[in-house]
């Protein structure tokens, strides 16, 4: 190698080395700038970790509330998460709640804690360390604990104790409440109005197989299915509809866009467009559809069509018409022209050339892109649903905004993720079959 060549090679290597150092350096500088712009340092102060803890707890467990109304009559009831439609009848209260002769309850809590609710309202909390008496009165509460443990908070209006494993006791003049956490999702299969909710798995199986009908008008299996579908806590029927709507939006949007954009893509492909000017017009048209973006389309369309799955489908359809128009016209530009030449030599017209020489070449590409976008649009449809008011996205946002039913949020998330994974798997299967065989 001669000297100038060597010097040139060294120069090129030096430049490469500089780039390979400069790119990570620039990236690092940018990340630092963003950390400042996003105020990452202040984030820890603003974060609400108690919210996070609550959320994690609620993901896999639920609370049973035992409530005594201290104002009117002193009625005691036990319910799931304080829901009116999930209140236990006295004979079906959980086994850790024991009735007393005076109408009160003995409530066992985890780790040797217990609460006694007397019929006339006095509360006794028993912990391994001692016994504490709390009495609600007409004006506040009476409590005499000279040296309260750290987990108690006491004022003349409120007594609250955080007990192990998420249990909690609060006493005010209006109500006494005891929370106890249970693992699992409450009443997931049947709500309390259903005769099946108290049965164990083996009992359910026995009833499903036996001919003795619990409801005379339908078989036990049909009754179970109906009670599950109409569960008033989890609303399985509505959730299934919402999930279906979301998938429907993705399906209609994706394939509708495919049908519309394929003929137009010919006009935007270099080798098919009748003139350069027309090609530019169609290309800009596709760019416009894509540039407006699903967000803006959703807003504009929901003004005309109102909320619902049709609006979401059309928003996806319009955006993806732009995407597919671009992708398909690129695929058309990359075809092999030999089959086209062959057909032309037999005197075939342009329509039959397109049908027999072009479509067979681009069909696998088009199909595989359509299927790929079907899966990705299932995800988009959840978020478009949240904006336009349809499908599982809306349910998710609503459940999150009430900030209470986190187990429902988990349920929706699990459903969405399973559906997306299923769509991914399905589109992969179809792609492999249609393209290879």
């Amino acid at each position, binding site marked *: 190698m001669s000297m100038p060549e060597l010097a040139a090679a060294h120069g090129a290597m030096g430049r490469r080395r500089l780039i390979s150092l400069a790119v990570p350096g620039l990236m690092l500088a940018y990340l630092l700038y*963003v950390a400042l*712009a*996003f105020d*990452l340092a202040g*984030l820890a102060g*603003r*974060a*609400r970790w108690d*919210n996070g803890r609550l*959320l994690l707890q609620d993901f896999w467990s639920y609370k049973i509330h035992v409530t005594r109304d201290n104002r009117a009559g002193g009625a005691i009831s036990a319910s799931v998460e304080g829901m009116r439609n999930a209140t236990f009848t006295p004979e079906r209260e959980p086994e850790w709640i024991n009735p007393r002769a005076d109408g009160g309850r003995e409530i066992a809590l985890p780790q040797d804690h217990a609460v006694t609710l007397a019929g006339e309202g006095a509360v006794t909390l028993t912990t391994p360390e001692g016994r504490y008496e709390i009495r609600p009165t007409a004006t506040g509460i009476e409590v005499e604990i000279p040296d309260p443990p750290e987990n108690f908070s006491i004022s003349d209006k409120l007594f609250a104790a955080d007990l192990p494993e998420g249990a909690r006791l609060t006493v005010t003049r209006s109500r006494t409440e005891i929370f106890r956490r249970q693992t699992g999702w409450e009443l997931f299969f049947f709500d309390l109005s259903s005769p099946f909710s108290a049965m164990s798995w083996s009992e359910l199986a026995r009833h499903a197989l036996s001919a003795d009908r619990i409801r005379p008008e339908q078989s036990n299996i049909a009754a179970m299915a109906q009670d599950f579908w109409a569960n008033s806590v989890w609303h399985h029927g509505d959730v299934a509809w919402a999930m279906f*709507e979301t998938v*429907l*939006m993705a*399906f*209609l949007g994706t*394939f*509708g866009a495919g*049908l519309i954009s394929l003929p137009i893509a010919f006009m935007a492909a*270099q*080798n*098919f467009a009748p003139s350069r000017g027309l090609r530019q017009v169609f290309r800009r048209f596709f*760019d416009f559809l*894509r*540039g*407006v*973006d*699903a*967000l803006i389309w959703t807003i*504009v369309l929901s*003004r*005309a*069509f*109102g909320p*619902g*799955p*049709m*609006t979401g*489908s059309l928003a996806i359809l319009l955006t993806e018409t732009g995407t597919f128009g671009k992708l398909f016209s690129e695929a058309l530009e*990359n*075809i092999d*022209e030999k089959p086209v030449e062959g057909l*032309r030599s037999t005197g075939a017209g342009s329509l039959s*050339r397109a049908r027999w020489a072009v479509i067979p070449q681009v069909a696998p590409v088009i199909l595989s892109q359509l299927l790929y976008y079907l899966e990705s649009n299932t*995800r988009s449809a*959840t*978020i478009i649903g*949240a*904006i336009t*008011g*349809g499908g599982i*996205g809306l349910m*998710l*946002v609503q459940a*999150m905004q009430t*900030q209470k039913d986190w187990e429902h*949020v988990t349920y929706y*998330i699990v459903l969405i*993720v399973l559906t997306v*994974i299923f769509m*991914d798997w399905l589109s992969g299967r179809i792609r492999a079959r249609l393209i290879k065989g």
Partner: protein
Amino acid sequence: MTDASEIAAAYRAQLARRRSYGALLWGIFALLMISGFRLANERNAGGFLDGLPHVLDYPQELVTEAIQKVANLPGLMWAAVPALVETLNIAAFSTILGAIGGGIVALLATRGLAPWPRLVPVFRRLLDISRAIPELVIALVLIFVLGGGPVPAALAIAFHTVGALGKLFSEVVENASLKPVEGLESVGANWVQRIWLGILPQVAPNWASYAMLRFEINIRASAILGFVGAGGIGYELRNAISWGQGRYDAAAAIFLLLFATIFLFDQLTSIARDRLTHGQPGSRAGGQI
């Protein structure tokens, strides 16, 4: 009957069967599309045919009012620029984070390169799962814990980007030549050195191209997440829309800004990707008819 005519008959029968399968598939597809649209139409608040004449009402009102107050537009657009910068920052930050994460997981999930071959399926499932979870879900959960602002959106998009880019990256790596890696291994290079010097130079153009495509997608995602409450231009747009008539100029300004941004980055990334994967701009080979 001669052999040739038998073959021809068999061929025709096969062809007829294939055509009838094809027709059947198309029939099912058409049925699904039609019944799907009818169902979606029924469950929509307003019908398709009733709404169709009004599709242009809103854009028209917006445009008329924006033209009347055209003097306000530059000021309003300028006022929305900080929010736009935030949206772009969310997109860029999450793309970089996602590309780094996706690159690392992709290398760990590629057979022949992974330092722990037994864990390859684990990393693949990890990519599948992070790809399957919609950004919206993570963003909403993080907003609840971390409060509003750009960080939840950025983390949510980054998480999804890890999965999306990781899959594409690992497809690129699978096609990379292993010879440089073997050469480096023979001189005693460790795993990081083998990857850094043997693999990254090969895959960098394609990785960069995919990352740019993702950046453009992430701009859209961060705008749309803003609309659900994660800050940036989406949030401003939502406020501007809720002001309603009389303040349409504000909404129009943000619409315009957002459109221009997405359009610009769509074109920019398209040109840059073309250069990265094809070498010279516009050198795509295309058949002519």
